[in-house]
């Protein structure tokens, strides 16, 4: 049984699907990282992903153009991000609860639109795999890393980009300042609301893409509650990764590899109840949270609305 799992082909299969499955987590969690580094917890990621997944699928299905679909997901995500920004910045609402509200809205709305416009589960031909020239010919490595579709590559490219923006640019400095010491940032002339509008809109856009990566690149269908709580995992991965893009990448990979392993265990017919196998990534997340959160500290201003004193 264990030997079956350890054969080279199976290991390559697990690694390849692990890379693929990390995609939606990466988009959503990197987006959430920006929001949280600026001091806003967005718990509505899953709802935004669902709306993005629906918009992407519907537009791709009706126009036959996947790029239009992706654009639609981006626009929908941006609108939801702006809404979250208005709620948390201007109305200073409790972020955890308003996020649940956004989630419920996205869950209901995507289902409603699905029933009204599509009615039945349809499929699209999603983004095709692109083999990177030369690199994809490397044995094993090429198969695992360099034969994926464009959204998978995009997700992994996003990690160093996010790291660069957060740590090496003025914008990143402003984001971190707003998240760590809002008053000081404000007194130095940084626009707190401007920064938070930016990070939350970016987070919304990335959530939209995360949803679309499911509906037009990985699964190529849309159905009710397609994400199945994936957006909440993405929020957990931000804590897991200690608010650093590299940490988020590490967490996403662990999570998706365990998921891939779990799928393969079932494919190979190994005798572990499937429900228990599906449970494992969640148990693992809690365990890792126990061991990581202790060492790191969230951004000081996280979940605290800002209002200038007199």
């Amino acid at each position, binding site marked *: 049984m264990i030997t079956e799992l350890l054969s080279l082909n199976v290991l390559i299969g697990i690694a390849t699907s692990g890379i693929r499955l990390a995609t939606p987590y990466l988009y959503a969690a990197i987006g959430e990282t920006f929001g949280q580094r600026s001091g806003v917890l967005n718990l509505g990621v899953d709802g935004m992903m669902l709306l993005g997944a629906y918009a992407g699928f519907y537009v791709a299905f009706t126009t036959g153009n996947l790029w239009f679909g992706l654009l639609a997901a981006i626009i929908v995500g941006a609108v939801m991000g702006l809404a979250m920004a208005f709620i948390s910045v201007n109305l200073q*609402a409790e972020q*955890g609860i308003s996020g649940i509200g956004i989630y419920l809205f996205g869950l209901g709305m995507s289902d*409603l639109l699905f029933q*009204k416009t599509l009615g039945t589960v349809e499929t699209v031909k999603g983004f095709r795999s692109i083999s990177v020239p030369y690199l994809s010919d490397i044995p094993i490595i090429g198969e695992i890393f360099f034969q994926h579709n464009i959204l998978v590559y995009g997700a992994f490219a996003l990690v160093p980009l996010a790291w660069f923006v957060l740590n090496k640019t003025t914008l990143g400095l402003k984001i971190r300042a707003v998240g760590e010491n809002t008053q000081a940032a404000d007194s130095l002339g940084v626009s707190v609301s401007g920064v938070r509008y930016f990070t939350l809109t970016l987070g919304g856009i990335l959530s939209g893409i995360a949803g679309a990566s499911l509906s037009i690149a990985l699964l190529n269908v849309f159905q009710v509650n397609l994400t199945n709580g994936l957006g*909440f995992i993405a929020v957990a991965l931000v804590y897991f990764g200690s608010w650093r893009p590299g940490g988020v990448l590490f967490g996403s990979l662990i999570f998706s590899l365990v998921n891939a392993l779990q799928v393969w265990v079932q494919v190979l017919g190994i005798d572990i*109840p499937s429900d228990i196998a599906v*449970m494992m990534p969640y148990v693992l997340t809690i365990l890792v949270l126990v061991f990581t959160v202790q060492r790191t500290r969230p951004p000081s201003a996280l979940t605290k609305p800002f209002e200038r004193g007199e």
Partner: protein
Amino acid sequence: MQNPLLKKLDFEKIVDALLPVLATFAALAVGAVMLVLLGANPLQAYAAMVEGAFGSTNSLADTIVRATPLLMVGLGICISFRGGVINIGGEGQLVMGAIGATVVGLWLPEVPAFFVVPLAMLAGFLAGAIWGGIPGALKAYFNVNEILSTIMMNAIAVQFMNYLLRDPLLDPDQFNAASKIPQTARLVQAFDLPRLVPTRLHLGAGIAVVLAILVYLFLWRTSIGYRIRAVGLNPDASRYAGIDVKRYIVLSLLLSGAFAGLGGAIQILGVHHRMFTDGSAMGFTGSAGFNGIVAALFGKLHPIGTIPASFLFGALLVGANKLQRVMQVPSAFIIALNGLVVVFVVSSEIWSRRRSRRRMSMSETLPELDGSNKLKKPGETQI
């Protein structure tokens, strides 16, 4: 002692209490726009919902039945939120409580109901307490964010339920049949909670209302409840006052889970009489774990206020069924509308916060307005 300021405060209190209602109306207005876009007449739609929720004895009873789990979850939410802990785990806690009650019911079919029914409720209460207590302990002793851990616990509970219903607890009839619908056998009829009037209304609703009063007394009239609220208001000050803050964090999440768990047990004994799954938590809970949070917030995190709030949301859910039947508006509309209500109600709190801040600064400046008071020591004030 007729102070004009006091009168003003009363008036502002009323406005504060009305804020969530106004916010709900605003959300319903947005919902009306959505209905128009869906091609339904919003007035007719809302009328159908009111009719569906209150139109007859039966529909009124259904509304109360739907409100009961919301109230149970909401009572738990009152405790945890007052204790400064956010519990998003109602879904998982409902499921675990229901599993606990089902196991007891299936295990003791021959034993008299007056023994088994309370035992099943206790099992649900304890199962929920464990499911809330784990994230509570993780928060208190390992600093794990409870929002995340309770969400993970929801997912784990769902898989646990699916696992149990696939094989260990599967109805023997289903086991033999080809269909294998994932559900347990029906509990013996003796364990059904008594019906109050010849409708679906069962004793569970009465239990929930009594518990609401008890939770109120617990939070405001006992020293444990006082400490839970103190920790929620100011953990640092509580620590200086000698309160073991960590222990009260665990306790508030544990109790919060316990009430949701008991709610799950009541759903089994009063409504479903068996455990079943559609693969997600929603199939069994009907999202009561989330909607209970909404109801509690709506009731201003006050156990008594949560009673009418749960009733209102129960009505919304029952009305949604009618809406779907009569006007072919998918019931997903209500989930979206619920989301809007949450966002609007939470956002509306900015006005009551602003006013209370103004009130505080007003009372600070009051002595200066009244020169004669200025130099008096406390206790010396004359009328």
